[in-house]
């Protein structure tokens, strides 16, 4: 399923994506900011040189070459932000939300009768508190 393209990207989008990935790759190689800026300007210049290309066949070829070059020069240890996908702390601490408990099977709930009894009571109290403070919701706000 993962191979199915869910949308058609325009040529401009593809070029922009390539440019961004190339910049991130440069960031991994040149870790000092000023050095990176210098290299980024050089990279921008390479992209700008063909910005006004009207021949789509040539533009496509250039894009293909660019992708190839990026693939061949991919940093062995790419620089990821810690909590982004690929980073060390990505999804490290995942706290399941409270409503998950409402979707337990009745048989599962029956194993903790006291807790769920108290939980239902608390839910009622919470709704009562809410309605006391903000009033009852309009009929037209109820979607389902």
């Amino acid at each position, binding site marked *: 399923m993962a191979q199915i393209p869910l949308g058609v990207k325009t040529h401009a989008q593809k070029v922009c994506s390539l440019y961004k990935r190339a910049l991130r790759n440069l960031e*991994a*190689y*040149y*870790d*000092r*900011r*000023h*050095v990176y800026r*210098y290299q980024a300007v050089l990279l921008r210049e390479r992209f700008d040189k063909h910005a006004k290309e009207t021949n789509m066949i040539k533009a496509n070829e250039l894009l293909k070459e660019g992708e190839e070059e990026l693939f*061949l*020069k991919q*940093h*062995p*240890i790419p*620089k*990821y*932000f*810690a*909590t982004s996908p690929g980073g*060390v*702390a*990505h*999804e*490290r*601490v*995942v*706290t399941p939300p409270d409503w998950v408990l409402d979707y337990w099977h009745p048989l599962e709930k029956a194993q903790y009768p006291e807790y769920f009894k108290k939980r239902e009571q608390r839910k009622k109290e919470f709704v009562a508190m809410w309605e006391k403070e903000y009033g009852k919701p309009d009929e037209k706000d109820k979607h389902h």
Partner: protein
Amino acid sequence: MCFNSFFFLFFFMLINFFFFVYFIMNGLSVFFEWEIISFNSMSIVMSILLDWMSLLFMMFVSLISSVVIFYSKSYMNSELNLNRLIILVLMFVFSMVLLIISPNLISILLGWDGLGLISYCLVIYYQNLKSYNAGMLTALSNRIGDVMILMVICWIMNYGSWNYIFYFDFMKNDYVMFIISFMIIIAAMTKSAQIPFSSWLPAAMAAPTPVSALVHSSTLVTAGVYLLIRFNYLLIDMFFFKVLLFLSILTMFMSGISANYEFDLKKIIALSTLSQLGLMMSILSLGFPDIAFFHLLTHAMFKALLFMCAGVIIHMMNDIQDIRYMGGLSLYIPLTSLCLNISNLSLCGIPFLSGFYSKDLILEMVSFNSFNLMVFILFYLSTGLTVFYTFRLIMYVMISDFNLMMIYNLYDEDYIMLNSMFVLLFMSLLSGSFLSWFIFFYPYMIYLPFNLKLMVIYVSILGSILGFMVSNMGIYSLNKLLLSYNLSSFLCLMWFMPNLSTYGLSYIYLNFSQILFKNIDMGWSEIYSGKGIFNILKNYSVFYNIYQMNNFKIYLFSFILWFMILFIFFFI
């Protein structure tokens, strides 16, 4: 829970210390044995061996684990399941102690398997995909060693008991003993991450940092070395020990180079651990188990400290471990940077810090013995590489420009973490001299030419200059990694060893199973069972549909047919 465990382990350390002093002063060693069952000329016994070596190692393990637990009180402050971590660490210490005090292969297996299992649980403590993969790699690599120990247990049944220490002198030239020692070496190599099995140690850095400080730097990985120290009498004449020398020197060299290319703070330290393990293994296979044990102890101290400093830095940088984001931190965290620098310099073997006493002794013994040029060169190159990556690390993390964000507020005021670090700081300053004066005072007469003696200093200076140069980046400088891309990525990814033990192994099976899946699951069995039966039924029903849907035509057709039959019957 935290404080109780800390208290317990700290007192356990003190008890071990007093017993150690008593035992070494009186030259004691105590051997307890309980017979559980005896049948068929085979006795199953539970035995415990307490001598100065096991007591000293237990003292170090309990000291490090107590400060690590004290440290995790603050480090894992926001963790909901802190008790789970503490219990796992305590179970780990228990398995380690069981491994240390047992002269019996069954109880060694219990300790050994416990270490593997608990280290798996600790690596997957953070439940994300990276940890799961790392945990699986760790567990399966260690499993090879467990299987080897199990096979040793089977082989040693020939002798009637599993107390291996009784057989060292009498059965040394036995063929069975040869097989046993071969398997023991393989088991130790998996635990100490020597070359074919090295990829798990950097991967295991997915564990929380206190765990890395205790498990993956100072205790678990040295279990293999400890086992070989215990088995040393048996192994010393073996040919395979020479192969181990070769592999361990290569491990040392490989991890030294990879650490220079690595950017993950914890992985750099893990690779330096790997390099030191290679050093211990190699001096062990040269025939100096006592020096290997000495280096094991001093290394445990400063490496645990190094990991704890890394933990403080990671905490402060919001979980970022990449040293490319860091820089100039010594201005904000002076006390942590003090600890980091001292442990790093101790790792390099700078004189009169703890690493110096053991490492210098090892290098002197290597120079003093006449080994071939390759061994000699690789030893000194690896020593230089240690200084090289240490200086690169210090330059990246502590000295050069700040690299993370525009507004930052970094500070060094977590005194729980700092206190626990200072205990280890004290130990990594003094443990080397303490141990060398009190315990390892062998009258080694080392006689070396002047330049050979100063060789360590030469390679260290060269390494520090190179470390300074690679971390210095001018605006017009060309990136050396890009210029030699293929070679660099080879060296960067640990000589592609992680690929060898992950994709390399699974590729064949996955490929084969994909072929099977395509041809059998989605191919023939589909044609002949699921899809095939469906097709047959569908075709028949389509065929019968023709009759059902064309009632009128069939009626006419049968009318004509009957008409023709009647015509033929009556008129012809």
